[in-house]
């Protein structure tokens, strides 16, 4: 019973959202608003059951029973900082939210700096230059690829360097960099097509599965319902236009 109900609900919600592709309609709007509420609720319940209860309430109770004041303060301080974020909605005391925001910003900035510099800066420069450290061990193909990689990386960096006016030789190099960027964007586009179509395949696969007898032809009933709705709506609109004229 739950499985068949689940099939109808799943097919229904999926087809309601797809119905937007034909025309905006109340079923799509219902599904859209349900998604807003359900999506938020999903993350809220995860926060409550996987963060607040195990990391705040549980340890707080345990620490309180044991008289572990260090742990109690280690829980109370971030909780107060978190609650301070909500004061943003009260104009008179909204300045308190700065405490929460500054903690988050300080932590994020402190974290982003070393990892960004190490992984995305130093290691990338190293990766570009490293092949040339053992040039004699490279095949012709590998050497050519390394040279293209080096020239490409430098010319792209020239393109993004806006402190100097792009004219003369700098303009030529940065224009060359644009071609490498276009190849990267084109490659991303090609893969994005596959990624999105894969998601679509996943949905259609499910709809085809739920159109079988074991799921009481759930997909078929929902499609029929939507088609009837659109036909009736079209006739009603024609009637209204005819009455008005």
């Amino acid at each position: 019973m739950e499985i068949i109900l689940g099939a109808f609900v799943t097919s229904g919600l999926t087809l309601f959202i797809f119905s937007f592709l034909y025309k905006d309609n109340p079923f799509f709007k219902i599904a859209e608003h349900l998604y807003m509420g359900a999506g938020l609720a999903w993350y809220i319940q995860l926060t409550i059951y996987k963060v607040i209860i195990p990391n705040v309430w549980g340890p707080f109770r345990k620490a309180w029973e044991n008289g572990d004041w260090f742990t109690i303060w280690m829980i109370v301080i971030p909780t107060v900082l978190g609650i301070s974020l909500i004061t943003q909605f009260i104009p008179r005391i909204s300045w308190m939210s700065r405490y929460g925001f500054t903690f988050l910003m300080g932590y994020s900035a402190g974290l982003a700096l070393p990892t960004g510099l190490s992984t995305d800066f130093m290691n990338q420069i190293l990766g570009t230059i490293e092949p040339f450290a053992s040039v004699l061990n490279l095949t012709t193909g590998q050497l050519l690829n390394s040279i293209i990689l080096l020239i490409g990386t430098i010319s792209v960096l020239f393109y993004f360097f806006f402190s100097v006016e792009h004219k003369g030789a700098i303009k030529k190099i940065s224009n060359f960099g644009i071609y490498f960027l276009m190849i990267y964007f084109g490659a991303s586009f090609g893969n994005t097509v596959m990624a999105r179509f894969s998601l679509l395949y996943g949905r259609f696969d499910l709809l085809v599965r739920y159109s079988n007898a074991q799921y009481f032809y759930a997909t078929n009933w929902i499609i029929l319902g939507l088609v009837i709705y659109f036909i009736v709506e079209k006739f009603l609109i024609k009637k209204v236009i005819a009455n008005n004229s």
Partner: protein
Amino acid sequence: MKIIKKYIPLAIVFIFGMITLASYYVPHRTSEEYLEWINRWENIVSAFALFLGMISLFYVHYKKIERKVDGWGYSLFVYIGFLIIMVAAMISHGDISKGGKVTCLGWTFNNIYNPLSATMFSVLAFFIISTAYRAFRIKSTSAFMLFLAGLILMLGNIPLGEIIWDKLFSWTHITIAEIKNWIINVPSTAGKRGIMIGIAIGAAVTSLKIIFGIERGYMGKD
């Protein structure tokens, strides 16, 4: 008052920023413990930020219902969707499955949240096909390079593409997979690497500006 409203928050950003930055480079046990605690703090504070979003969304839709604007009835479904998942979570105590059996929350996850979320993202596929036909215009060399790279990736991603390439270009003795691999490993990597280095420098500068209190936009008006 200025100390409480301005200077203490700036001190917080500086202290936490510098200590977190230093902890990455210090391999001592204390540094690891600090990172563990500060990460727990961040989880707790971020959790409340989510409640901020919740209040904001509920307020917007409450106002729509109160003023009975066009389509106010749909705003009720925001609350209905929210309640369905929250009630299921309370019944199941946040567990998707228990003892191999799917719980109430697990059922709502599989049949409500999952289809809605996945379908919303998959709708983009239709807009890709529409854009490909109506907006993809090859009017310059750069656009042609973009198209060529995209074409090779698309052909290389599907078995039919491999067959088409072999039928037309087998005389080159290079397969579409080899060209695709080369594009991803060499020119595309060069493009991405340049972007990565640029972003890393920008992120480093912005992070330093935030830590030293030069960048204060997130604090709002004084």
